[in-house]
């Protein structure tokens, strides 16, 4: 049995929120999250790496896996984060700037540590149900509205290339669905699933328990959500009980 994993993303800007990070990490650990993802959304646009002092403290707290994302642009950046206790590192904009970084990280640490995050939305002018190589495009620097831009890459081509280079997991953030709470973008995810042989994590759009059930039924390996957990709209323990009752294989604590 493979699990639908419930993953929680935590956004943060700088070290002043370490207290809040630790508090949230403890809360989600105790509520039964399967994995935590920490995003430093300001890191890549500002070209600085994540401040790592907090990672040691998170490591000491958690007995579930966690991933760190944001501004990792070298093997040395990744090594410091993994040595501090993170289980995985996730790269997004730096991988688009320098795709060889994926190969270097996979060679040094193994594919299982290397997550490639992909911010994707329909190409301008593509109709809502459009599919295929040209239908979805990758965006970069999405943490900063002023710098966000289309990368010029097709999402499906980029996901294939990232895997060929050694990515061990793909997190697909469906930008149009993100924060809207109207459900995961199942058409978009199905397209990416069809070219993804490594674990695929859905991100963007969770607003109800039904949305999680639907996305797990669509064949993703895990679903990531932030705001619905953050706000308390959905409690992880309750979500997992209801998913289990609906026949989704989840770890219930």
């Amino acid at each position, binding site marked *: *049995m493979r699990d639908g994993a419930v993953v929680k993303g935590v956004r943060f800007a700088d070290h002043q929120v370490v207290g809040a990070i630790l508090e949230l990490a403890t809360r989600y650990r105790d509520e039964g999250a399967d994995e935590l993802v920490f995003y430093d959304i300001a890191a890549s646009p500002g070209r600085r790496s994540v401040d790592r002092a907090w990672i040691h403290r998170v490591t000491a707290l958690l007995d579930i*896996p966690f991933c760190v994302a944001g501004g990792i642009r070298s093997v040395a950046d990744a090594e410091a984060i993994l040595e501090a*206790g993170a289980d995985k590192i996730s790269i997004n904009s730096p991988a688009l700037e320098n795709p060889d970084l994926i190969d270097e990280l996979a060679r040094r*640490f*193994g594919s299982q540590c290397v997550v490639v995050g992909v911010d994707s939305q329909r190409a301008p002018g593509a109709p809502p149900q459009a599919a295929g190589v040209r239908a979805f495009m990758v965006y970069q620097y999405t943490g900063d509205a002023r710098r966000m831009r289309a990368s010029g890459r097709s999402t499906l081509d980029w996901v294939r290339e990232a895997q060929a280079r050694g990515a061990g*997991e793909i997190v697909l953030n469906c930008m149009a669905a993100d924060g809207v709470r109207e459900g995961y973008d199942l058409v978009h995810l199905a397209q990416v699933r069809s070219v993804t042989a490594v*674990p695929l994590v859905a991100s963007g759009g969770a607003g109800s328990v039904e949305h999680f059930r639907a996305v797990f039924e669509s064949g993703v*390996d895990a679903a990531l959500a932030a705001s619905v957990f953050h706000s308390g709209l959905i409690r992880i323990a309750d979500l997992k009980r209801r998913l289990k009752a609906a026949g989704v294989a989840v*770890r219930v604590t």
Partner: protein
Amino acid sequence: MRSHSRNDVVIVDSGGANIASLRGAIERLGARTRLSADGSVIASADRVVLPGVGAAPHAMERLRTAGLTNVLRTLTQPVLGVCLGMQLLFARSEEGSTPCLGILPSAVLRLQSLPGRPVPHMGWNQLRRLKADPLLEGIEDGAHAYFVHSYAAAVTEHTLATAEYGLALCAAVRRGNFWGTQFHPERSAATGVRVLRNFLGQ
């Protein structure tokens, strides 16, 4: 001198980056940990943990260079191999056609990717108990544990528990004073805490 606390755990420094979580998990249970590649330190520990993140050829090369292969094979205290550390206990790994420690017979093979079974096998999976063993005391059949791996050992007479991932793979193993888990107890919430506590009680 050997500690009398029975809580002196030496983690073998096999060059993997991710040791901090394992150390943290063992220390949360009140044990003292040291990271060492020194054969005499390892040989005199109360318990030894062989961790492993990364690739088998690199890890075995590190152990050989540090002169540790014979030290590890001849340990008599409880030893726990975790993930790649468990795989290194076997005779060989298909990963880079690497000869390993040979404490357990048989080989570690590449997992085959199947529809709905992407490789690496990464995530929570359920344990199926095959044998009673002190390491798994208190762990229910069907308990969840966290796995991250692309290679796996086949089920043999030494297997204590399996996980199903397209095929039944060896999730926990024992031969004499050597135990191994393919899953990461340090990342397996309550299940992992219990496994580590059981190991510290050996």
